[in-house]
């Protein structure tokens, strides 16, 4: 007997009892629909969470802190404190170039760079005629020049700095940001005068945007270190050469908007020079050239962040990464999903019982037919298969119906505000978004329910499987019917 004939026979038998088949199909459809919609909520929540985390910080970046200083950073982030010491001896782990090299060699690590903030160096960056405009050196940071591109920074103009490139005697290469120019103050104005400062977005009386005092991409700038001694002032100056400018990326930090970015080797040189200039006045903080306070490690994929994070902590460092937040959020979502999923699974269980009932009834009704088929030489396996196909069909049709309905539901939920607005005035969407935020859904404007294709396929397969499993017992019963008994009586 050909499989096609079996399928045709099953389909015909199903359509013979349309009403009952429809009822059973509805049962499966409701279950499938519930499952898809519930899972789609979970996916949407996770996506919203992910988007939110990404806006908080770079999800694939780990911040590593040197010993002695514990920073709290990011919004609501916590810092995991590693306690193990390297190699088991009591020597604390040191965050230096060798250690960064070790990080870089770890699996999944794309790049790593120290992050040095130069606020401990007493110095200024000046520009304009007579060095009228001045910015504090606190706005300068130091990184590995070669690590910038792999870390995920992007060029707005110009070029990256290189470690080997020669920029001339007493010239320090620098990269700038979109708003670096706003760091400059007009030293001719008093500290109290608002004319001394310019800030991004500031407008004049006519409402025109005000440019910063200095166009960092064009004007010459000078970096000057001073010993800070009013009686016996000593200074040393370097010319700054702007190599390029980067795009701001607040996920990596606010500093990407308005810093002067220096090469770490130049920073070290400045540290040494500052120590020479200031002598005993030099602050012990920020002048230590043998270790870093903070290092950024870039990981290839979000899923590997935890592993790398752990490895770095095992070396004895404190770290901060978004994965820690991510996991807590995912756990929350998956707990919610578990509860909703149980509900959906329960309704599918009811659907399965429904199928068993329908199939058992069908077999009672068709006892005689089964008997005839057996007497005419239909193999037992084919009879079993025929009923399994029938119950599988019920599952599949239910799955398809449920998928279509759930796609509709998902569409309606995602466009509820719009639909409400079209149907009757505005402000109708408040209810559902309130409900969603109660369920742990934060984002507004993004999707409430996300149904990826794999979810639909999975639901279809699952519904069909439910149908098949529910059909096993009735089908086995069909094969056990005595042919003789079945055909004997009218």
């Amino acid at each position: 007997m050909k499989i096609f004939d079996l399928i045709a026979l099953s389909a015909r038998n199903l359509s013979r009892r349309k009403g009952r088949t429809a009822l059973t199909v509805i049962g499966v459809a409701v279950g499938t629909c519930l499952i898809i919609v519930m899972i789609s909520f979970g996916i949407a929540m996770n996506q919203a969470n992910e988007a939110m985390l990404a806006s908080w910080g770079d999800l694939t970046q780990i911040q590593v802190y040197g010993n002695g200083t514990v920073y709290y950073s990011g919004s609501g982030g916590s810092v995991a404190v590693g306690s193990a010491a390297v190699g088991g001896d009591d020597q604390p782990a040191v965050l230096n170039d060798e250690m960064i090299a070790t990080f870089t060699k770890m699996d999944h690590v794309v790049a790593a760079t120290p992050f040095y903030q130069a606020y401990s160096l007493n110095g200024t960056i000046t520009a304009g005629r007579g060095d009228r405009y001045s910015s504090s050196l606190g706005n300068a940071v130091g990184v590995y020049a070669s690590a910038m591109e792999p870390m995920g920074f992007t060029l707005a103009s110009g070029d990256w700095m290189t470690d080997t490139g020669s920029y001339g005697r007493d010239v320090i290469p620098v990269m700038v940001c979109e708003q670096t120019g706003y760091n400059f103050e007009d030293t001719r104005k008093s500290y109290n005068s608002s004319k001394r400062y310019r800030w991004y977005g500031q407008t004049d009386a006519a409402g025109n945007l005000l440019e910063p005092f200095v166009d960092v991409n064009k004007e010459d700038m000078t970096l000057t270190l001073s010993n800070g001694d009013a009686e016996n002032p000593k200074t040393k100056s370097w010319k700054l050469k702007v190599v390029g400018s980067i795009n701001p990326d607040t996920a990596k930090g606010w500093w990407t908007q308005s810093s002067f970015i220096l090469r770490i080797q130049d920073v070290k040189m400045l540290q040494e020079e500052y120590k020479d200039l200031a002598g005993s006045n030099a602050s012990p903080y920020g002048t230590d050239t043998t270790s870093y306070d903070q290092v950024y490690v870039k990981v290839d994929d979000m899923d590997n962040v935890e592993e790398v994070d752990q490895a770095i902590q095992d070396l004895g460092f404190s770290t901060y990464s978004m994965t820690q937040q991510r996991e807590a959020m995912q756990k929350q979502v998956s707990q919610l999903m578990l509860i909703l999923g149980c509900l959906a699974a329960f309704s599918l269980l009811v659907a399965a019982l429904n199928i068993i009932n329908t199939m058992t009834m069908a077999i009672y009704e068709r006892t005689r037919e089964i008997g005839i088929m057996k007497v005419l030489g239909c193999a037992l396996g084919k009879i079993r298969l025929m009923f399994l196909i029938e119950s599988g069909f019920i599952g599949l049709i239910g799955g398809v119906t449920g998928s279509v309905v759930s796609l509709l539901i998902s569409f309606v939920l995602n466009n509820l505000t719009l639909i409400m607005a079209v149907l009757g005035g505005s402000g109708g969407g408040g209810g559902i978004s309130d409900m969603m935020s109660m369920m742990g859904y934060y984002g507004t404007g993004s999707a409430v329910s996300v149904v990826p294709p794999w979810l639909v396929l999975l639901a279809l397969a699952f519904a069909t499987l439910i149908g098949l499993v529910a059909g096993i017992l009735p089908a086995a019963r069909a094969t056990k019917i005595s042919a003789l008994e079945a055909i004997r009586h009218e």
Partner: protein
Amino acid sequence: MAPIIRTEGLRKVYAVGKERVVALDNVDISVEKGEFCCIVGQSGSGKSTLLNQLAGLEKPTRGKVFIGRHEISAMTENELAAFRQAHLGFIFQSYNLLPSMTAAENVALPLMFKGMGRRERLALAKKELKSMGLASRVNHLPTEMSGGQQQRVGIARAFVSRPKVIFADEPTGNLDSKTSRQVLLRMLEMSKKDQITFVMVTHEPSLAACADRIITILDGRVQSDVVPPEEERLRRRQALADELARDEAEEAARAEQENAGSEAPDAPAARQTTSAADAAAK
């Protein structure tokens, strides 16, 4: 020549509550290939039980049943299903057509079980139905046909796969005597044409008389096993055919008298049946 059907000490006992009903006791029969064999006997004597054992629809309590070289009493259900599919055909008293299928689809069932493609098997089924005088009924459902027509569909279904043996339990039991004779002659003709062994249970002596072998059962035992002489059989078949032809002629005349405008609906089939009866008598 070795018999195609043979039993050895066949015994069937039914347990009804604490009581035991011996439905068959020590039955040894054999049927030759191509024989048209009738099983007769009183009601409750065990005819159906015997037929069911022969066809492997039920397992004997003791004894063996052979069809050809195969001991079907020792086969598993799956083996039996395959064996039936390949070698056996069945005709039932209550027709047992599948109610959801048309005449042609019903006839094509055994071919479908054999794995034949739809177009091919429906073509064969239609041919078979045509030869049964049902060309105009191929797409009718069982409920849209008379008992006689349904039984002819049933016969077509049994013959369509040209099995080695066909079993029939009172195939004419629900039909009037004229239709019974038509159906019997048709079965006789078809089994002779293709050398198909035919085993039939019947209550009607006039039908049984036409058989090549008449086995009489009484209280579960073989009372007699007769093979009438050749001329006798031919004479009886001819008599049956003549009788049928006479009835049909009478009926046709009556119909013409009563309703000159319209023709009797079964007339073409009847004419065919008459010629079939002549053929079977030879």
